[in-house]
């Protein structure tokens, strides 16, 4: 069995090895196994799984051949996903801190205490003294209840989710360029594109099933090229046709240089530009958000194509070569791929451009390239922003569980507030027009004492927040009250005053929304363990204790269906219509806009999108139907290496572990494959330091230090002067060292760049 699993784990990284028939081999069999469909619990790809349930236990997983996402393929995390339900230390009873120690309590006691603390703080300090911090791993009903409870009923915009840390720049990128969030294309673009350019995106490890689909296309079709544009060499680079490395932050300059080359060689699509685009400039030298209560508002100004060309004069490839380390030849090569009228191009990115102090700008710049060439909104021509979490799109972006957002529109929009108030049955004055705290500022407010009560659900911020020490210590202060709903003990439950055991994934009914606007339903397949129940129901129980029962009149049995029916009203229409509950239950996923019983695969083109007017492109998110091409310059990061701290620190994920590892580290196979974190060094740096794989190195930044084993010439290869550390390991907290600088537009932190020194420990 172990041999088969080892082979399986390796094979899932490449196409042509694991297909449904092969996956069936060795699976438990029997008439009493019921196979039920569900999206995977882990990443934002949203693979369809079939889960074998036998005698009330999930016993097996196979890829769902009916799923258009993965067509029966699974990665190593998906294949072992159900094992994450059965860790020995699952939280099954509520815990309340008494005399400094977390002690078992009843669910009634715990929920009573949460409700009374929330009420007490609102009465004493005002409604903006309480907050909920949720997750892109929340189901859509969880996020919807949180939004209605906080924004509609209590009347505070103190609602955020961890997706702020991973996709906020994607949202502001879409909003500023197109006026509507989420990709215009879908995964089917992979079957049509001739060229794939990955911008700082290690897809082979982070989105392995999609990467396999891409490799599969390269095998099937002549001339398909994969370009890996990144700051370190990874498995993705190894499998690509060309690996091009750039110095951290200089992707801004290279993207502009590509635009320069496209215009210089007349590869731009004049007709498309004239009819469907306008040019805009914004503020520059916009800061890094390092100070508390940082404020920024952009001011778009009209530009012309000629002014845009003049701006790009500073980004000639030969000049950018010196800054970026990318040869002018490689820049011209990339530009030629985008500029070739006979090639369909797909750009893919995730945390590289998003976790960036100019994340919104980077998203804008990738759109600029596609807009200049008119390669957008048609099969295979697709700038595609991938997400990291299973429902970052569905729950956070679509339900709007961020301080500025509502399930439809934003809090500062009067019509959006009126619509929400009407659907929720609350006075419109309940909904505040002012956003309060984005994630970093929310934890700063907790540290300062502006927030006294925080309820954290389905996320582990005291591993994942940057500049961790400040925020962890802030949460521990005397008059703060921290509630944590989760499935396992974590460093976050360690600081909690109340811990609520949560039902996990298929222990309750729900929906996730993946990267390609696909909503996927899963039924309750298992009984939750111990006294656990869903995050949504925990919030409903607390709301009822606070006297808000009339806003949540549903039963435990029907609440998911009733929530969906209510949420459905927010998105009616052909621009964002979502599928009815019965359709979601039946299908293995439905892509919105769902119009006249059909998914819309490509938006903004009349051939594919019923909402688009005219006979071709219509970027209807903007009032004049035109997409915006932005002038966005190169600006340096908040912190760069210097004499005292000469290395770049880059952080990220690994194939085997999901985010902070709280679930996957409880799966023996995954834990044994990747038991601890490490510091990946370039061999020349390792040799200078006298360090080989396994030796301890000490990393120090201006915020803290950490000793961990070195990794040289193993999985990944950073460039000289760079060190890469995964963040999944709660015993080796790399975020003690990271910096809480963020993109001033999206407020998403930059986890990819800060300065450290490296010493042999």
């Amino acid at each position, binding site marked *: 069995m172990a041999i088969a699993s*080892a082979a399986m784990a*390796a094979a899932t990284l*490449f196409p042509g090895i694991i297909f449904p028939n092969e996956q069936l081999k060795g699976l438990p069999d029997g008439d009493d196994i019921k196979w039920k469909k569900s999206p995977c619990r882990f990443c934002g790809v949203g693979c369809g799984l079939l889960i074998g349930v036998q005698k009330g236990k999930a016993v097996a997983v196979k890829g769902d051949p009916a799923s258009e996402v993965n067509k029966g393929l699974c990665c*190593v995390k998906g294949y072992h996903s159900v094992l994450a339900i059965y860790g020995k230390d699952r939280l099954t009873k509520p815990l309340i801190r008494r005399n400094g120690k977390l002690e078992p309590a009843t669910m009634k006691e715990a929920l009573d205490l949460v409700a009374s603390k929330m009420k007490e703080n609102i009465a004493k300090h005002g409604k903006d003294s309480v907050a909920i911090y949720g997750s892109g791993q929340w189901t859509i009903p969880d996020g919807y209840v949180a939004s209605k409870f906080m924004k509609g009923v209590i009347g505070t915009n103190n609602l955020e989710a961890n997706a702020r840390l991973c996709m906020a720049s994607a949202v502001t990128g879409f909003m500023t360029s197109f006026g509507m969030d989420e990709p215009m294309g879908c995964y089917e673009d992979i079957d049509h594109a001739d060229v794939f350019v990955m911008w700082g995106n290690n897809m082979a490890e982070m989105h392995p099933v999609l990467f396999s689909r891409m490799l599969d296309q*390269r*095998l099937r079709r002549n001339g398909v090229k994969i370009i890996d544009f990144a700051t370190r060499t990874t498995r993705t680079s190894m499998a690509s046709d060309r690996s091009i490395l750039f110095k951290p932050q200089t992707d801004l300059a290279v993207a502009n240089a590509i635009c320069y080359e496209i215009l210089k060689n007349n590869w731009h699509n004049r007709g498309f530009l004239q009819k469907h685009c306008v040019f805009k400039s914004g503020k520059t030298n916009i800061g890094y958000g390092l100070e508390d209560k940082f404020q920024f508002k952009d001011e778009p100004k009209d530009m012309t194509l000629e002014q845009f060309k003049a701006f790009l004069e500073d980004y000639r490839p030969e000049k950018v070569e010196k800054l970026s380390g990318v040869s002018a030849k490689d820049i011209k090569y990339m530009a030629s791929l985008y500029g070739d009228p006979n090639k369909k191009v797909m750009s893919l990115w995730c945390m590289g451009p998003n976790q960036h102090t100019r994340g919104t700008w980077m998203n804008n710049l990738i759109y600029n390239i596609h807009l200049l060439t008119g390669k957008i909104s048609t099969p295979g021509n697709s700038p595609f922003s991938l997400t990291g979490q299973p429902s970052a799109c569905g729950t956070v972006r679509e339900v709007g569980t961020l301080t500025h957002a509502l399930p439809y529109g934003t809090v500062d929009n009067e019509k959006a507030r009126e619509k929400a108030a009407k659907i929720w049955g609350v006075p419109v004055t309940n909904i505040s027009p002012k956003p309060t705290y984005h994630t970093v500022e929310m934890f700063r407010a907790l540290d300062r004492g502006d927030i006294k009560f925080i309820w954290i659900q389905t996320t582990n911020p005291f591993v994942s927040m940057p500049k961790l020490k400040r925020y962890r210590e802030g949460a521990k202060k005397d008059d703060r009250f921290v509630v944590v709903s989760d499935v396992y003990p974590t460093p976050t439950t360690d600081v909690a005053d109340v811990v609520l055991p949560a039902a996990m994934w298929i222990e309750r009914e729900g929906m996730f929304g993946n990267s390609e606007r696909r909503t996927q339903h899963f039924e309750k397949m298992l009984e939750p363990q111990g006294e656990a129940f869903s995050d949504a129901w925990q919030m409903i129980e607390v709301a009822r204790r606070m006297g808000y029962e009339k806003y949540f009149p549903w039963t435990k049995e029907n609440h998911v269906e009733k929530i969906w029916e209510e949420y459905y009203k927010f998105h009616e229409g052909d621009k964002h219509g979502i599928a009815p509950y019965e359709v979601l239950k039946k299908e293995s996923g439905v892509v919105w806009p769902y119009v006249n019983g059909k998914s819309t695969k490509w938006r903004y083109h009349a051939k594919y999108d019923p909402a688009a007017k005219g006979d071709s492109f219509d970027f209807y998110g903007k009032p004049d139907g035109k997409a915006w091409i932005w002038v966005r310059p190169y600006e340096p990061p908040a912190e760069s290496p210097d004499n005292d701290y000469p290395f770049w620190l880059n952080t990220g994920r690994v194939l085997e572990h999901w985010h902070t590892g709280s679930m996957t580290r409880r799966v023996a*196979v995954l834990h*044994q494959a990747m038991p601890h974190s490490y510091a990946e060094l370039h061999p020349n740096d390792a040799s200078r330091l006298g360090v080989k794989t396994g030796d301890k190195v000490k990393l120090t930044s201006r915020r803290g230090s950490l000793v961990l084993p070195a990794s040289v010439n193993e999985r990944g290869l950073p460039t000289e002067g760079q060190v890469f550390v995964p963040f999944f390991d709660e015993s080796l907290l790399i975020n003690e060292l990271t910096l809480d600088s963020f993109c001033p537009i999206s407020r998403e932190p930059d986890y990819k760049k800060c300065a450290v020194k490296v010493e042999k420990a």
Partner: protein
Amino acid sequence: MPIKSYLALACENQLEALRTEVLALGCEVIPAENKDVLIVISETKNEEEDKALLEKLNSMKNLRHLTLVSAFAE
């Protein structure tokens, strides 16, 4: 009883030679369809033996890159 799987990338046009080298070390080999990659499955008696095997794998002359995918130990 460590059991491990690796992805082994061969030097240019040396996939078959690499396959022979890996088989000679007693590992199981699954060739991938994309022709540049082998899946290597190793099973050893203890950690010491596993470490020695890894050193041999890493020193194969036709190997461009070896990367661990999964590991099982009892």
